[in-house]
């Protein structure tokens, strides 16, 4: 399969126009020693064969159409209305570049402006950028921003924050003279007392995640207040769907709010691509990483959109940029904008309520199983942890047999938690599959 448009005759004529006898003439500058190799790759495939072969490969994956997914831990099997993909996958969005040429990119630019506005409404924050790679890297960039903005070097992170997010932050901060201090938890949420003790004049920021990795609700206002009291910034990492019911970070004093955008209209796709959203309060605007679209006018006075505040960015400021990010996750953010537009004010709340309802129905049902206990009795949104006193391998097998994916073994992340499982329950789960899940556990 090739996608070359020139014919052989074209090629001959073009070489003649260039004035070289053969193609190799164009490569004269490449040392001969570099050109002596054979690509050790298979021959190409026709579209028929390609589609067939990848369908075969795909059969070795267990997917959400055949299996009910109770896995979460940062990305969730939410329903994506068909319209989202239908619109976002239009060629005009998919095959255009970053909108540097404003006049040729008003569609993208307006949709970014609308995305920024929607995210600001959702989070009650002042400003949003056009997107980051994912929730974890957004949180890491937030920590970088806090360190840069405050001139301080410590970041306090509760152990209840998603373990992978903490690892990513560690990687991002590894070249800096920075320190990440882990704050312990009590009964599944941040130990506020320990946090307060750890605070001090060298703390750039405190991080809080809502809901936290265990699905439990943190006392975000308390954490924020403690941070502010110490002159530190407060960074909130939030699940966007939960904001249909939960207090938005802008209201409890977050200076920076970030999160994983996948739940907003993006398929799980084995973990990517999704996007991270990144918002700040006004004072931090000029330190925002990444792209921002603004509203202005054209020379005839018509409303027009354009990338702005570019003096923060690498292509203008090079080594003085606020971040090295260039390509972001625009198409994923577009999906989120379409999804939020479809969801609307009323739908957002309903979606959150459906998640709450299903998750609590599952919680209640599973706790009726002998040997199943709650990990914590604190309130949760759409995900919760259980202790399941069963042989892990037998449990896995039983779940698979019952066409269930998950729940997630906590010991993968917190080795000290034995027999702990994280159960995620979205609007996509049904009473039928919950019953299957329960039966699968009971059968072990």
């Amino acid at each position, binding site marked *: 399969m090739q996608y070359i448009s020139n014919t052989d005759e074209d090629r001959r004529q073009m070489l003649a126009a260039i004035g*070289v006898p053969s193609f190799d003439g164009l490569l004269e500058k*490449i040392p001969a020693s570099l050109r002596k190799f054979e*690509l050790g790759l298979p021959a190409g495939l026709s579209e028929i064969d390609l589609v067939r072969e990848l369908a075969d490969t795909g059969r070795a994956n267990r997917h959400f159409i055949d299996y009910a997914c109770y896995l979460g831990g940062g990305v969730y099997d939410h329903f994506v209305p068909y319209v989202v993909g239908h*619109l976002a996958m239009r060629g005009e969005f998919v095959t255009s570049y*970053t909108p540097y040429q404003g006049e040729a990119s008003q569609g993208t630019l307006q949709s970014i402006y*609308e995305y920024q506005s929607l995210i600001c409404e959702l989070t009650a924050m002042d*400003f949003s950028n056009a997107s980051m790679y994912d929730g974890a890297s957004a949180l890491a960039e937030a920590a970088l921003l806090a360190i840069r903005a405050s001139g301080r070097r410590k970041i306090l992170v509760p152990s209840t924050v998603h373990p992978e997010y903490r690892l990513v932050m560690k990687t991002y901060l590894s070249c800096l003279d920075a320190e990440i201090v882990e704050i312990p938890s009590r009964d599944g949420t941040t130990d506020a007392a320990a946090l307060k003790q750890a605070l001090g004049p060298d703390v750039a920021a405190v991080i809080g995640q809502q809901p936290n990795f265990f699905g439990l609700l943190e006392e975000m206002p308390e954490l924020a207040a403690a941070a502010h009291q110490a002159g530190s910034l407060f960074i909130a990492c939030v699940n966007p769907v939960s904001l249909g019911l939960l207090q938005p970070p802008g209201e409890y004093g977050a200076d920076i709010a970030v999160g994983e955008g996948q739940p907003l209209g993006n398929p799980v796709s084995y973990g990517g691509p999704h996007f991270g959203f990144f918002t700040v309060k006004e004072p931090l605007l000029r330190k925002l990483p990444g792209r921002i679209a603004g509203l202005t006018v054209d020379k005839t006075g018509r409303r027009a959109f354009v990338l702005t505040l570019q003096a923060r960015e690498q292509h203008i*400021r090079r080594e003085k940029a606020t971040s090295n990010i260039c390509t972001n996750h625009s*198409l994923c953010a577009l999906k989120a904008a379409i999804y939020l537009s479809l969801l609307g004010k009323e739908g957002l709340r*309903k979606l959150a309520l459906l998640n709450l309802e299903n998750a609590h129905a599952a919680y209640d049902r599973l706790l009726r199983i002998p040997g199943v206990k709650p990990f914590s009795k604190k309130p949760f949104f759409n995900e919760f942890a259980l202790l399941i006193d069963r042989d892990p391998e037998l449990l896995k097998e039983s779940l698979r047999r019952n066409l269930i994916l998950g729940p997630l073994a906590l010991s993968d992340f917190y080795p000290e938690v034995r027999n702990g499982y994280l159960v995620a329950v979205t609007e996509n789960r049904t009473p039928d599959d919950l019953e299957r899940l329960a039966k699968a556990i009971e059968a072990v």
Partner: protein
Amino acid sequence: MSGAELIFEKHSQNRASWLPELKSSEESLMKKLPASVLRRHAAELPSLSELDVVRHFTNLSHKNFSVDANFYPLGSCTMKYNPKVLDAIASTSAFSQIHPYAEEADAQGALKVLYEMQGFLSEITGMAEFTLQPAAGAHGELCGLLIAGAYHRSKGRKKTRVLVPDSSHGTNPATAALCGYEVVQVRTDEKGHVDLADLRSKLDSSVAAFMMTNPNTLGLFEEDILEIARAVHAVEGLVYYDGANMNALLGVCRPGDMGFDIVHINLHKTFAVPHGSGGPGSGPVGVRKELVPFLPSPRIVRDEEGYRFLKNSPQSIGKLRSFYGNFGAVIRSYAYIKALGREGLRAVSENAILNANYLKARLKDAFDVPFGGFCMHEFVVSAVRQKKRGVKALDIAKRLLDFGVHAPTVYFPLTVEEAMMIEPTETESRQTLDRFVEILLAIDRESVEDPAKVLAAPHTTPVARIDEVLAARQLNLRYRKPQAPPKPVEAKDPAYSR
């Protein structure tokens, strides 16, 4: 009704029609949550029917130039045709509806894709091993420099500086700075290549890495690449290959053979991941053997039982993002490489190089060509001659839009005055290239005969030239509720409205 309204300015009955009804009452549900954590004011999302959402975004899409509708010779961006079937493959349930925390046994198909893709990229670049974790080119650079740092530290070396050519992409210095290095620029010589003497003068044991591209930003092959690599290695520095634009090298030559130690690739350029108006992409990183232990965690390996994660690499730089990279992008590139095969990949580069040289040959009389000789997949011309007539590169860029052609990259690299960086890619036909030449020559003539028309361009886009200064001065970065009064009825072209 031309879709110029913001989504917030439209009103109709919101339905969120995919959501089933609640089974219990709201009150009973709200009891599950303490009042202290609750939202007090509903988020002011717009309220719209599905039709209004469809119409809104369909109309927005009409306001974009795109490869699907336009020739898009944007230099350094490789705006080629990305086969649509790849989108279809990526969105099948078997690949898009799978969870990253599924048991390895439940995701053998996905792991196979990742594993084989690592091998494909190693083979294409001549590196020992690849990670697919980075989400984009800049993310790959971060990954690469972290690996370089870890490697040097493991050897007990203290490295404080990173060298980059003066024509380098902005992400190179930005990444080096992010990693705490001092950034030092290396000059370009009069032939458009890395100035070897200047490079040598800046090389010493403090140099962690020299980041470069080859072909370089001017589209020229760095003939002295083997010598450059030797010189950097001589001070125990690493040579970093920014492979964002690798479209000229497939089956032609390999960074690994040139002496590069670390490589990143932009799958969203060379390997057919569509650019998506600004991502998502994917920026895999490959390293030579000695650097493998430092790759991000987890790596994907194969044993008798199948494909699995390797998580315990003590020297690994750690994780760069959650999960394992942009799988939905990687699978497109994987299918692309499978579809093209070895001959197809070589044909990509041959035709990318041919198309660029053909355009360069046909444009060289009308436009200044700062660096002669054959180019690789792209080249830079300069509009200095037109500028003397009052028509700048920017004006030419805007005027091209009236002919349905996207503008080349302008004013980059910064080292060339009135630069226009043109990358036709291999998927365009000679007919399209000829038409593009005709159009550029026509605009060149306009710069003599009717410069005002060029200066006032574009004339046919949804908006005319945009006031960027106003945008930066009176920042308006989001919608806020009570806003501008409703707009009067307006025909699509305001010249014809009442």
